[in-house]
């Protein structure tokens, strides 16, 4: 894994096609690229909204996410996140924002959603250091295919249905400890936990 990470990944060819398209939107307001992104990510985001209880607002969420992608595309930096990761964080934030706004007035929101949940690349001070950001999606995709289904199920519920570990335990009727150990095993494979030990 570490040998993979050490390889320079600067070559254009390493950039995945979606990241290249997102850059075109950011640099040239390329509407063809924007449309391609919509066709690829729109259905994913709509399902995401439906899975986490925003079914009656699913199309609204997709629209908000895409308007946000357009407005922010000039800030996108492929060295800081792959397009799919960047778009996931925007979808996540728009979902949180939508739920927050349903519950209260904007005057009550002293802290904005993006003060709490950042989009990769928003922080200019953050150095463009690690190539592992680029590698991480590829690595996760590969590792995920080796994970047992029961681990993937738990992670999917956390990310897609926005259930806490406790809620997942209740739903699957298994102890909380079992849920946590499945997640730990998975994160271990994905090297999130290994990173804990390198502190």
């Amino acid at each position, binding site marked *: 894994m570490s040998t993979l990470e050490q390889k320079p990944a600067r070559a254009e060819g390493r950039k995945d096609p979606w990241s290249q398209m997102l850059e075109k939107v950011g640099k040239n307001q390329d509407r063809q690229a924007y449309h391609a992104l919509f066709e690829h990510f729109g259905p994913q985001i709509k*399902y995401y909204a439906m899975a986490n209880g925003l079914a009656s607002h699913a199309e609204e969420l997709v629209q908000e996410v895409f308007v946000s992608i357009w407005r922010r595309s000039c800030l996108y930096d492929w060295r800081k996140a*792959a397009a799919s*990761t960047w778009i996931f964080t925007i979808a996540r934030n728009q979902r949180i924002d939508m739920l927050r706004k349903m519950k209260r007035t904007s005057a009550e929101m002293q802290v904005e959603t993006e003060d709490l*949940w950042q989009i990769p690349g928003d922080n200019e001070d953050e150095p463009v250091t690690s190539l592992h950001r680029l590698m991480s999606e590829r690595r996760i*995709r590969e590792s995920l295919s080796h994970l047992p289904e029961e681990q993937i199920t738990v992670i999917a519920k956390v990310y897609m249905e926005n259930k806490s570990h406790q809620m997942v335990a209740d739903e699957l009727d298994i102890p909380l400890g079992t849920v946590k150990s499945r997640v730990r095993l998975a994160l271990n494979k994905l090297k999130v936990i290994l990173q804990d030990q390198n502190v």
Partner: protein
Amino acid sequence: MTRHHPDSLTLMEYSAGNLTEPHALCIRLHLDQCPHCCSRVDTLDSLGAVMMEHQPKADVSESMFDRILSRIDSDVEKNDVVRRDVHRMSPLQKLLGEDLDSLPWKRQLGDVSVLDISERFPGQSEQVVLQKLAAGGKAPAHTHRGEETTIVLQGAFADQKGVFNQWDFVVLNDQDEHKPVAVGCEDCITLSVLSAPVKLTGTFTRMLNPFIR
């Protein structure tokens, strides 16, 4: 550099967007000062992207794309107007202003002052509390009911588990009993999110954590 980090499961709940606002604030404040955890969250955000890709897809119509185009066409904000100025100010400053010392602290016991800021998070059931332990001061021994997440905003405190410096992140539960002491020459200020009221074990009745666990 901080030494005490959130665990991976908590960071995953954060990345998934499942944490409450006060809990997310604690994580955000830590991330702002911890490149190590930032890179863990980057990995977790990528996991989110891959999970989203693995799920079924729901059809979107071409007319929806037309509606999006008409929104961006009527957009008064130009593409490049979206800048990062909004994010310049830390969420802590937005909530509490520049000077933590000038807040309306309430003296509790000799060395401990507290300020309940729960009402800044409308609609959340958790109690959100700032605590200040005077430099060199000691807090009485205590335990907690439920779980308490704490981040050190200023100074440092020590207990039998170690020293907790600025931006260190610590989670305590009813198993933990301690007697924290503010170390260094600064008052130690912490932000804590409590999932349940503090258990009152000793003679001190209204005490809060992390100085009172």
